[in-house]
């Protein structure tokens, strides 16, 4: 009993510390991106600057509108204060509150991610389970080749190919995710199915289907949960990139537009969000499996 309690409290402390680290990383990431944007060429300027109709006073007014953002530290502190009051800030380049922008665009990104993750998992399972469980060397080779091929195309290249075939962007995310997921999944399965008792069962002539659930997937659940967490992270990265490239009105496109317009508040919000998602999914992976944790 007492041992258990001690274990739980140790785990809680570890979790607490990890959460603290995540918060610190997100905080620092936001500040870093704010500083980078602030000191990048083009900060505080606007396309309006080149509008010959504008008078000198109006040009100066455009320049002045970014005065609050000139000191990144002060801006960042003020921004967090407002965040706690429930206000994410205002995007000058898109002329709308950031909260509205996120609410409008998050569904597209989520949709892309969900379909991408589902597609990639289905593909990875279809390719890896029979190859590992039935030990089909040829299928394994073909799967490796296919995953290698998809891994070898740039995301933008995949986008071009699929667009020309008339295929939706969701599959692009799936194809970007698939090779990595496939490799992980195959390794997890191989490890699980290589255990002595599974080998013995196979040697005794048991079919692979009943083994799969009870002796392979169930014992590997921790790794599989970790894999789901990792795939969320990967899907987010892929979706954001593909949106930016493919003109889908999601968060990635928003980030691209914000970066092009040096929209400080939007970029800070997105950086903090991306940092949180990345770190949280890493944490889930770390907590659920010691194997993946060894890499952290």
């Amino acid at each position, binding site marked *: 009993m007492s041992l258990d309690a001690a274990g739980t409290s140790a785990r809680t402390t570890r979790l607490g510390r990890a959460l603290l680290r995540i918060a610190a990383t997100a905080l620092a990431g936001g500040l870093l991106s704010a500083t980078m944007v602030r000191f990048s060429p083009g900060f505080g300027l606007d396309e309006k600057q080149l509008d010959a109709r504008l008078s000198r006073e109006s040009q100066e007014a455009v320049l002045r509108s970014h005065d609050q953002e000139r000191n990144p530290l002060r801006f960042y502190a003020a921004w967090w204060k407002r965040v706690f009051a429930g206000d994410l800030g205002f995007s000058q380049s898109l002329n709308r509150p950031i909260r509205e922008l996120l609410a409008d665009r998050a569904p597209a990104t989520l949709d892309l991610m969900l379909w991408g993750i589902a597609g990639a998992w289905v593909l990875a399972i279809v390719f890896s389970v029979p190859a590992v469980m039935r030990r089909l060397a040829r299928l394994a080779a073909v799967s490796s080749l296919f995953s290698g091929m998809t891994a070898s195309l740039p995301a933008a290249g995949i986008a071009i190919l699929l667009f020309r075939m008339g295929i939706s962007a969701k599959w692009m995310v799936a194809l970007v995710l698939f090779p990595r997921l496939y490799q992980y999944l195959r390794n997890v399965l191989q490890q699980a199915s290589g255990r002595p008792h599974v080998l013995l069962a196979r040697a005794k002539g048991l079919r692979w289907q009943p083994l799969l659930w009870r002796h392979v997937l169930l014992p590997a659940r921790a790794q599989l949960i970790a894999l789901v967490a990792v795939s969320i992270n990967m899907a987010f990265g892929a979706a954001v990139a593909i949106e930016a490239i493919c*003109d889908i009105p999601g968060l990635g496109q928003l980030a691209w537009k914000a970066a092009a317009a040096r929209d400080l508040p939007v970029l800070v919000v997105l950086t903090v969000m991306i940092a949180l998602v990345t770190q949280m999914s890493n944490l889930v992976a770390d907590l659920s499996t010691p194997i993946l944790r060894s890499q952290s």
Partner: protein
Amino acid sequence: MKAFLAKLDCGAGTRACRVETRLDAFRGLRTPRSKVPNTHAPRSKGIVRPKSVDTSVDAADTSVRATAVVVLALLTLACSAVAATGAQPGGELRFCLYSEPKTFNPLLVADTSSEAIRYMTAGVLIRVNRQTQELEPSLAVSWRVVSQGRGIAFKLRQHVAFSDGTPFSAEDVAYTMHTLFDPSLHAPTADSFHAGGAAVKIETPAADEVTLTFPTPVAGIERLFDQVGILSSKSPRKEMASLGPFYVAQYKPGSEVDLSRNPYYWKRDRQGLRLPRIDAVRLYIQQNRDMELIRFQRGDLNIMSAVSPELFDQLQARMPAAVRDLGPSLESEMMWFNQSPKAPLPAYKKLWFQSREFRRALSAAVNREDLCRLVYRGHAHPAEGPISPANRFWFNSGLKPHRYDPAEALALLGKAGFRLQDGQLYDAQSHAVEFSIVTNAGNQAREKIAQMIQQDLKAIGIRLNVVKLDYSAIIDRISQSLDYESCLLGLTNVDLDPDAQMNVWLSSASNHQWNPNQASPATPWEAEIDRLMQAQGSELNPARRKAYFDKVQEIVSQEVPFLYLVTKNALVAVSPSLQNADPSVLRPQAVWNIEMLALTQEVAKK
């Protein structure tokens, strides 16, 4: 006569890439967040206002996606649940905006998309006919310029109402002008009047009369009112109440803007029937032009504006009846050298750029015909000066074309002390001639132009480094840090009158790109341009103003502060189902006569 608008544009926009995909694949799944409630105008007039059906576009897309669905049918689950028949509601005109509109307030418009929406929704006192380029009465039935060009008196149209039924009166015009000339507004439309901070006197002597008086004469004042959308002073809908043929019924950010027919629109056709003829306009926000082309070919869209030469040729092969090359537009491409003494460049490079012979030589070394032929597939013309031939009144037909002549270029360079040695050009102090040109990343036409200029200059021994930057970085370099050597950008003349180019030509102005914000003119020819521009600005006689500005164009052609490269043709595509279409080179090209446009029976019934 006034109001030209010179605006440097970034072409394909600030986005750096246009790889294509299915933007609309998500449209049906997103919650519409309309800022503008749908129940806008009273429904008592018996006008059918079709409600937009969200999934209609997805349905059509799904058919193309079918191949993917077959291959991966097991995996898609119900992703194509929206599959329907692709039916179009009756009388709906559809086309694309290429960027998100930044505002629906007609007075704050600064971007192209908002400008297009303003044209279709806002009522103006005077309209510039996009085909004849003449002024036409709109909400003002007549007007006259008073107080030696310092003022204008309007006689307003009576029995006109806003889209929500609120009656229109002189009070609304006065309210609009008060809002417009509020010094804290900083809108380009207001600044075009050059009224400065000084008060504009606004009087309403009668319910249908308004008089505006400015502190100084405003050249070409009438034309400026084409940009001033009239607001309602009383309507609870504020700036969303419109006097134009349509009103904004719904806005789904990132996806579309829906306009509905204004039942109170004042204009009638010859038979006395109320205009507009079309019930609704659906504007898709879509940056991807290839997707637009596919949808146009499918019949989803009725109009494509500012088509790229590649897509135009592709479409011409498939739908020859739909495409129209309208000839030179108001858009051109140009490059210039940084002549500012404040620029952080080596002194010898500043000497090159400040040398007239150097600039003229480089202008002669660029093969403009090849640019038109290879980059624009023949849909462009070599540019001669700041005013395109599309601008009928202000174009100076006397300007000599810039001939491509490398030999003359070398002769001019020789005169300025440069010498060619082993294929490399050196200046008088034996510096190898090498410089960079910045242009915006993502604009493929401009990138190709830069590469062609690179080869042209290599032929006379000059090494040119092409640098692609994002648009914000370019603005910073050309307007703030001045840390650049030469720049390649586009010039869009939205309006016709050169008075709005004041901030480009005056040596003291911030948009005097080659050497901005000068305390006093750096060269005699810039001083002369200053004088001529001031003179045309205070002159009321159009012929004399034209003479002044012709002289400006001649000086610019001689001194080459800007190397005008090509004038792009206006390329549009109009589906055969659209009747009365008469596209113009001026924006908004195919929809300038939107109230007259009609869809053929079959399409409307669908």
